[in-house]
């Protein structure tokens, strides 16, 4: 927990240039990789455990480390394809997946081989092994102390991004009924309705729309915080992964970009719902709707 607090404090307290990447000296594993999926977003029916980087040529260690495990070919095919796991200082582990199997750095079968790697070394060429639709690299970070996957964007150097996240349609669900919320939406009261919103961060490096997860979603009811969803960690509890230790994918998502934001009680007074979404570069967007009771 201590490490994550340091990381978060670094992100929020210090300037945007002084990030955890400077603290730990980390680099992006694929220099020209385009982010095609981010941590916590709905990916193949569950949470993405890291980032997926499309394109690029070579995969390098994100930081100095030691090879723990190299899955080149086993007795079964792994959906992450050929992958390498590195151990870093501070109890972090990194995983590099979908590598080109013919080029993967395989540790020797000896007790005294050279197992340490540094960022200038190539782990493998970018490949498409495993469950991959093209040349890509799956990059994941595991915090041993937290026993969780950590969002790589908390640790890797910040990438320039001036595009604000998007809050699109806001839906009000009551039982099987669903209606799109306007600025002021009449609700037959009293009622408890579910709030669902189209939320995503737009990828910055592509000519077409790339749906990515934001860093944080905050929901306020009449100015009071009702829900905060941060895309920082994924922890397994009883055989399921929970975002921030709280939300399962099937609870949080109603589709690729439709996020369930909790319940709202509408009784006698109008309720102002404000949804604020931030990305990792500090770009933010807010949208408010008023749920007006009707009797």
């Amino acid at each position, binding site marked *: 927990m201590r490490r994550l607090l340091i990381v978060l404090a670094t992100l929020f307290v210090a300037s945007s240039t002084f990030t955890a990447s400077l603290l730990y000296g980390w680099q992006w594993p694929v220099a020209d990789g385009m982010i095609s999926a981010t941590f916590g977003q709905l*990916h*193949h*029916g*569950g*949470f*993405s*455990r890291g980032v997926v980087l499309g394109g690029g040529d070579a995969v390098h260690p994100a930081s100095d480390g*030691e*090879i*723990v*495990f*190299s*899955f*080149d*070919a*086993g*007795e*079964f*095919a*792994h*959906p*992450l394809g050929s*992958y390498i*796991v590195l*151990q870093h200082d501070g109890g972090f*582990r990194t*995983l590099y*997946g979908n590598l080109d199997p013919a080029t993967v750095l*395989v*540790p020797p*079968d*000896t*007790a005294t081989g050279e*197992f340490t790697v540094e960022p200038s070394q190539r782990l493998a060429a970018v490949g*498409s*092994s*495993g*469950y*991959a*639709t093209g040349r890509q690299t*799956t990059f*994941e970070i*595991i915090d*041993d102390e937290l*026993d969780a*996957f950590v969002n790589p964007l908390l640790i890797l150097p910040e990438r320039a991004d001036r595009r604000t996240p998007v809050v699109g349609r806001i839906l009000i669900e009551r039982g099987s009924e669903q209606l799109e919320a306007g600025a002021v939406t009449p609700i037959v009261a009293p009622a408890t309705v579910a709030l669902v919103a189209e939320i995503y961060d737009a990828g910055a490096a592509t000519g077409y729309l790339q749906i990515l997860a934001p860093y944080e979603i905050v929901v306020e009811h009449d100015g009071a915080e009702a829900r905060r969803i941060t895309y920082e960690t994924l*922890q*397994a509890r009883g*055989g*399921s*992964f929970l975002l921030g230790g709280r939300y399962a994918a099937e609870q949080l998502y109603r589709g690729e970009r439709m996020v369930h934001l909790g319940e709202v009680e509408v009784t006698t007074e109008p309720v102002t719902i404000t949804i604020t979404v931030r990305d990792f570069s500090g770009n933010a967007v807010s949208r408010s709707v008023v749920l007006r009771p009707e009797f």
Partner: protein
Amino acid sequence: MKRRKRTTVLLAVVLLAIYLLLFPRGTGEEIQLQVRWIASVAEGASPPATGAQVSEGRASETPESEGGSRDRRRWAFRLGDRFGYLGDSGTVLFASDVLHHVSMTDERFVNYPDVSQTVVLHGPDGTMRSAIDAAGYPLLFEDRMLLLLPDGTTIAEWSIDGATAHRVWQYSIASVYSAIDVAGDVTLVGDIDGRLVALDGAGGELLHYRSRSGRLPVVVAVALSSDAMMAAALIDVEPQRVVVYRRDDEGYTQTAEYTLPASLRRPARMRFLLDDRFLVWEQPHALAGVRLDTDTRFELPLGAPVVDFAAVEDLGLLAVLYASEATGGDAAADAIGDTDAAADAAAADTASTGDAGDAGAAELPRPNVRSGELVLYNAVTRIPVGRLPVEARHFFLHADGDTVLLGLDDRIVAYRFIRG
């Protein structure tokens, strides 16, 4: 005078020792490998042939006398990019090219592409049996099917009855899985962070262990005994350990632990063999194991990394296939090594299949050819009782009863064992 006598005696002893070394006497344990048949699994292959007998790498012609025993058994094989089924008499019942990967049992297979939303199950004759709408990589075990979901951490079990196919359970291990085995209704999973989880037939946890003792926790191999009463894992790096569990009313309880002299940092093979009396695992250039009833550990040094191993249950033998990594080589003998004996075997093969273009003639050097041996050990004494040099790019090893199937590139040789 006395000194000369002593020298003479010493010389005699040395000569005797050299003689015994060069021409060892039989111990009665030597195994002759009789070739039952040779099947070509290459595309457009000719029918199987029978004939050569190989012992300690020497081949001789002997007739196959299988009479009336055709295709009582069926064996699944995967050899390089080819897979399929062989009948008991060496008939290629079905053969095809692997798409991305293939998972097989004797009763069904799934040949799947790298990305798919559907799992299509086929019978051994290649006919489609059923299809399941699910994304991931299937793993077939007897009458069970696991699906490895694309996230690399989640495993689901699906019923494989086409009419009522449904997900039985789904479980996300806390990190990326690195090793999986199944026996009975138990699933054993290891992950890259040194976690070991055993699940029952409903996906409930029977065992949840997290290694904290090694410098680098990781699970590189797991194994379940045939009745799932024992579980084992090859775990951690520096030092690497073998942990053994026994199932009881509470789940699994650790019963043994062995610290190993070397560590593998890649997927390794580990199996319970010979009526689950032995636990055997891969080591760097060696096969190691423990006889569980006597807690006797052993290590069999090999000349190169283990390719695969199996037990010849009827004879209490361990068949170990090892081969070096190589980048080229002269493939004068296509199927079996470059020794005289191997050349004999290849010649017998050629004669019986009539495929003169495949072996014997000079060919261009083949990249990635690996050379090694198939060694047969008495499992109890660990004495090698048979050796066969091998050379190929792709290998396949399977043992069943008294038969060993050895696949080398595009042909599979079925050996039967004869003592003496």
